[in-house]
């Protein structure tokens, strides 16, 4: 039950030799896996790699045909541990997860895997979430490659290069018995392009055959004395093999004229931005032909010293283009140059900013400075002097409202936070620990609830320090999503609270999916799933962990019940963690399923009820108290056009899905009687039609009788 059906994309995975594949980068990677005889695939969803998981989840037919095993791993650690299948057996495996945050979780398994080494190719596809549109802390995954001595490819951001990199990664992994990371940026994952497909290949050995004839080798297991041999192998066998592979297979590419007095060494992923900047400076044409000597590192770890030194030979200055900090590549190259006594001037962070996304403007400014300082003659005159006066554009920074992400229309999590807000109005403010997922949007107006987020599934864990000496004193409230709960929160948050007799309140926000990442199914999803066992109860799991005080709320839109339950949890004498499981389906996914169904039913003449809410503008006084407890995109303000009134009144537009939150909040907080629920019934039963027209006539009679007796202006 992913957010959108991927039937169209699944068909593209069937493309054969010579056919043109058209689609997004992440889908091209999925196809490349099948073309390279992958035996099993796993991973954990998160932008920008979610689509790989979503499409494979829908392509059971192709996978069984090729004998490929696919599963949605419980976490990134599980996914990386799954690569153990490639330690003893020559099976190619691939897993994917979201850059830094995924690799953090996976790093334990990654170290073990990298130590023992692999036989079959082990590929880790990492979606780097850096710069514009990112939703995580700004760090680089590169550090993990250096720490565990895992190789990392960062191909040029076009489909042919990315697909070639998948094949190269598997070969490199097998030749050097080392897992390989393929790093693809947000925009490379979602770049629309084409490449020439080849036939999908069955894996050399599939997982069933491996089971049938198990193999083991004490030397590959991470336990002394083998661990010291592993380290020795890394330095003397695997690293040289990888570096030889990079040279032999020309993984890194050379552009421009080698005899240039200046040169650029750049990460593969920044290639398009560098070429565009050179084009804007008149140093490259729009096909990338240039005189500037460039070494494109499609493999950013390991570097090959000879290749680097050879490139710098005879140059006055070299610029390193490496996005993000710290500048690992620049430090390694500086070390090589110093050790070999080279006198070439090394530029990098300084001319280019230490941190932040390398946008077009950043690159033009940086390259402009570099060439002006070290090769001014190369810059065409037209580019340097200009008599154009820049036109000053008025500063709009104070005239634009910020538009941070927020809950969708009809979101089931909005009433949970409206209720929390009402509890705080009664009992005062509490320490609130947030987690990662849509519920993190509570930290923004209008709710402003939440002090910290420490990672996925770690909301309650981050409140574990708080033990109130006064048993009747204030407790903390911590939130965790159903996705975070199953990922690790079950033990790291709930189990820990039980074990350490923590008295605080834990709210598990259950919207039936891993919603923020695109609505993938999880253990507690309510939908039936052919390949997954869903409908496992969170309440039972918590009871299994020893939680005594636990409440299940099945309709989060009941703001009054939500508020009273939360208040009870904060005030009850009971000891131990108080857990509230608030469950209602993510509205975005629900509408994607329900809307077509309703449209079809209506067309087929069945009785269909379309709920919608509205506001009586004559009763609304324009104080917007309802907005301060909602923030729903469909509840907005409008002018009444009545000169007697000053402020805009509340109004609900046609995008309303009739979830009831605004009405329930107006009722629970006793705000105002302006809200009404309209249920529009298509194909009503004859009885309904008769009753409606009969009641209508009586009401009309009453109305005309009253209007005959008074002056009315309406």
């Amino acid at each position: 039950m992913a957010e959108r059906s991927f039937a169209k994309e699944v068909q593209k995975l069937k493309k054969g030799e010579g056919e043109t594949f058209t689609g997004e980068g992440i889908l091209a990677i999925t196809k490349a896996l099948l073309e390279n005889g992958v035996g099993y695939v796993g991973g954990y969803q998160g932008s920008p790699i979610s689509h790989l998981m979503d499409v494979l989840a829908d392509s059971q037919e192709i996978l069984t045909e090729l004998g490929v095993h696919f599963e949605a791993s419980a976490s990134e650690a599980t996914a990386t541990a799954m690569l153990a299948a490639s330690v003893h057996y020559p099976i190619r495996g691939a897993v994917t997860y979201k850059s830094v945050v995924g690799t953090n979780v996976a790093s334990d398994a990654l170290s073990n895997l990298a130590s023992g080494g692999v036989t079959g190719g082990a590929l880790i596809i990492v979606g780097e979430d850096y710069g514009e549109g990112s939703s995580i802390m700004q760090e680089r995954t590169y550090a993990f490659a250096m720490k565990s001595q895992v190789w990392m490819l960062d191909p040029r951001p076009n489909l042919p290069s990315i697909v070639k990199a998948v094949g190269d990664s598997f070969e490199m992994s097998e030749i050097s018995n080392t897992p390989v990371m393929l790093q693809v940026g947000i925009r490379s994952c979602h770049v629309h392009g084409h490449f020439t497909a080849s036939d999908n290949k069955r894996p050399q050995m599939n997982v069933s055959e491996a089971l049938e004839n198990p193999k083991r080798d004490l030397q590959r297991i991470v336990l002394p004395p083998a661990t010291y041999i592993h380290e020795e192998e890394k330095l003397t066998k695997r690293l040289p093999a990888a570096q030889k592979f990079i040279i032999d297979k020309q993984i890194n590419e050379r552009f421009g004229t080698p005899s240039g007095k200046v040169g650029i060494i750049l990460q593969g992923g920044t290639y398009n931005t560098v070429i565009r900047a050179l084009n804007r400076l008149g140093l490259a044409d729009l096909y990338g032909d240039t005189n500037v000597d460039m070494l494109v590192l499609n493999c950013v770890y390991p570097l090959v010293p000879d290749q680097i030194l050879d490139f710098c030979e005879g140059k006055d200055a070299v610029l390193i283009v490496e996005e993000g900090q710290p500048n690992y590549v620049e430090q390694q190259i500086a070390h090589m140059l110093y050790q070999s006594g080279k006198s070439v001037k090394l530029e990098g962070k300084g001319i280019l900013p230490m941190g932040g996304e390398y946008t077009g403007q950043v690159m033009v400014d940086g390259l402009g400075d570099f060439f002006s300082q070290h090769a001014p003659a190369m810059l065409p005159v037209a580019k340097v002097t200009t008599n154009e006066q820049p036109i000053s554009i008025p500063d709009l920074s104070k005239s634009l409202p910020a538009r941070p992400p927020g809950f969708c229309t009809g979101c089931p999590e909005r009433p949970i936070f409206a209720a929390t807000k009402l509890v705080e109005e009664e009992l005062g403010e509490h320490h609130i620990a947030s987690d990662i997922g849509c519920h993190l949007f509570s930290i923004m107006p209008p709710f402003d609830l939440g002090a910290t987020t420490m990672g996925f599934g770690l909301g309650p864990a981050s409140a574990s320090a708080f033990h109130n000496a006064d048993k009747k004193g204030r407790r903390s409230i911590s939130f965790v999503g159903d996705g975070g709960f199953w990922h690790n929160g079950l033990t790291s948050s709930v189990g820990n609270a039980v074990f350490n007799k923590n008295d605080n309140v834990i709210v598990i926000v259950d919207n039936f999916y891993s919603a923020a990442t695109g609505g993938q199914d999880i253990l507690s999803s309510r939908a039936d799933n052919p390949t997954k066992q869903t409908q496992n109860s969170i309440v039972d799991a918590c009871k299994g962990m020893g939680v005594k005080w636990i409440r299940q709320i099945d309709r989060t839109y009941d703001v009054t019940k939500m508020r009273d339950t939360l208040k009870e949890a904060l005030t009850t004498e009971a000891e131990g963690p108080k857990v509230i499981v608030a469950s209602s389906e993510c509205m975005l996914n629900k509408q994607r399923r329900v809307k077509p169904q309703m449209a079809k039913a209506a067309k087929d003449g069945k009785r269909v009820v379309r709920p919608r809410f509205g506001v009586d503008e004559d009763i609304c006084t324009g104080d917007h108290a309802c907005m301060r407890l909602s923030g729903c995109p469909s509840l907005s303000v409008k002018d009444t056009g009545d000169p007697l009134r000053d402020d805009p009144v509340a109004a609900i537009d046609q995008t309303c899905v009739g979830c009831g939150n605004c009405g329930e909040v107006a009722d629970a907080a006793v705000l105002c009687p302006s809200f009404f629920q309209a249920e529009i019934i298509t194909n009503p039963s004859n009885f309904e039609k008769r009753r409606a027209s009969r009641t209508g006539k009586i009401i009309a009679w009453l109305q005309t009788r009253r209007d005959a007796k008074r002056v009315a202006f309406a």
Partner: protein
Amino acid sequence: MNIQTKPLVARRSPGPDGEKIITLAALAVGGQGGGVLTNWIVAVAEANGYRAQSTSVAGVAQRTGATIYYIEMCRDTGRMPVFSLSPSIGDVDILMASELMEGGRAIMRGFVTPGRTTLITSTHRIAAVSEKIVPGDGRFDETDVYEAMGIAADQLVAFDMETVAKKAGSVISSSLLGALAGSGALPFERSSFEDIIRASGRGVDASLRAFGDAYDIAKGDKPAPQPQTAADLPVPVLNVPKHLKASWSALEKRIIALPLEVQEMTGLGIKKVVDYQDVTYGHQYLDMVEKSVTLDTAPYEMSANAAKYCARALCYDDLLRVADIKTRASRFARVKDEVVVKDDQVLHLTEYFHPRYEEFTTTLPRALGQFMQKRKGVEAFYTKHFDKGRRIRTDSLSGYLSLWLVSSLRPIRRKLLRHDSEMTHANAWFDTAMDVAKTDTALASEVLANYRLIKGYSDTHVRGMSKFARIMQSIDLLKGRPDAADWMRRLRTAALDDVEGDKLDGALETIKSFAG
């Protein structure tokens, strides 16, 4: 030895055969169909022998937040150009924005460059949360954005594309595509755009209609939809039954006797007041307006305010008023129109009420109400059993009749407890204003406008009353100052600006400091 002082001229250079890369960035609010629009544009380019690349940023950070889609295309010369993956400052040929402020954001981020960028933006507004939660009117002013558009855009196509799409029964991505095609910024025929929409297979007819309307508007062959002015809002109709014609014209005579500047507002006020209660109440209202006129001089600004806010003060929102509005034929018509109920459909209408003990007691006759208010036992019983949300179906007879009965108490409204407190409060406010008017009509006019703070129900109402009271206390401090009226207005704006009233406290402190 940095020889260049001015920024470099960093404009893209064309290919050897003169072919140029066209860059197009689209700013949209998450969930507005930006992806559909992007795919359509790429498909049109590829259908016309262009190579095209698009990038988007999907993920949680885009849920109802601002997000960017980026497209580059170039005439196919046999070689694949190196397309950039994201827009850069000063290098965007076409910038599409699906909402007015997102158009402004594109300008602020440097994506709209004079002499280069065609800006295609919808002018409708989607209010951001920060604009909606302010007690007063928190919506951002639009003039700065329009002014910046005029300066920054080389060519500007701006009209309300949301309304164009809604009228055609489609979504904004279709009208945006039509505006793009009509702007002539892309070298492709209208028909190739339409072929792509036909191929997309979902809601094709509606999309084609929206596309066509937007295309014609962008070309200038069709007028853009005008913003909804007061003129075309459903105008309430005055209905005066025969036996009341005489008493109604008596009121009209008194209005005509008023100064011209006051007649229009009083005309509206009288209709609201008489509709709220009866003709006698109308006369009470006119007494107040006339009193204000006697203390006022041309151009009678104070009296216009008196006419406006006395009408508001007299028509307080009690249970009777709410029940009366919810049982009117005009209200049912408006609801049916707003939620789009066709003739063959049936409407179930559920009202959300939560009357508390206070609303219950204040709707009782004065003596009984005061007696009940003292009985804490009864209040506890009521709160335990009756103080909960009510769901009343006004499309069903029983539900409708319950509200009908409540609103039929209108004739005895003057005897109810609520009327008592409201009248004392309103008269106190009005008398204070008239007293001030003797010396400073400008200050008095602002005192009258302070009634804007009284709104809302239950605790919002209470909070509004307390802010109102604190401002009224400052009148003595301000009296006699030439800038008293300005200070009073500043106090009121501060009170309207935030909920807790911190800004109001600050303003009051400053007044106490110099007027003390």
